């Protein structure tokens, strides 16, 4: 994408990415994780602030925090870049993601819509909805359609 992005650090498997959001509220560590789902071909993209839990001696990925660091578009472009890298490493895997709130899902929909032409060079993008049996099914991506989330599939190049 042609937007400015932060430098990313990734783990060896290219399933965890980390970057620093830098703005008026300081330097905040953000993490993107691609987790396996019940379907072996679909990975969930989780994104949020990296918080250490002293009691459990483990990290929490908190996707509910509103950082308000004035860099929303840079963050979205950085997350999109991680999807390029993940699907470059695992081209057969699809990526599912949804916002932690309806508002954030709409924000992601808007970001996809604005950059749809460029994204479509590399990916096929679908909306994700629940059918009457509670299963997630894909529908064609529409800029104005309310959906549960999104599914991204890398095109065979």
């Amino acid at each position, binding site marked *: 994408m042609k937007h*400015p992005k*932060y430098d*990313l650090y990734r783990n060896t498997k290219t399933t965890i990415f980390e970057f620093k959001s830098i703005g008026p509220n300081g330097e905040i560590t953000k993490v993107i994780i691609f987790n396996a*789902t019940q379907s072996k071909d*679909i990975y969930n993209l*989780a994104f949020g602030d990296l918080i250490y839990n002293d009691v459990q001696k483990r990290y929490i990925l908190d996707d509910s925090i509103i950082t308000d660091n004035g860099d929303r578009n*840079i963050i979205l472009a950085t997350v999109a870049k991680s999807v390029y890298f993940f699907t470059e490493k695992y081209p057969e895997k699809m990526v599912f993601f*949804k916002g932690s709130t309806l508002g954030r899902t709409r924000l992601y929909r808007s970001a996809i819509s604005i950059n749809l032409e460029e994204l479509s060079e590399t990916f096929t993008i679908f909306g994700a909805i629940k059918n009457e049996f509670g299963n997630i099914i894909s529908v064609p991506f529409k800029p104005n359609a309310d959906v549960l989330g999104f599914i991204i599939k890398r095109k065979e190049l």
Partner: protein
Amino acid sequence: MKTIVKKISTENKNASVNSKVKINKKLDDLKFIESNKQEEVNKLTFNLNL
């Protein structure tokens, strides 16, 4: 009276179009607590034919 217009730069100097991706092996050892949302996603069943 002079009016001073201060230009505020919206450019973030820590970001660039050609940002880099590097390996950090410390990330291999990160242990996460599963969030409620992750648990919710784990329960989702996908019925896709793409």
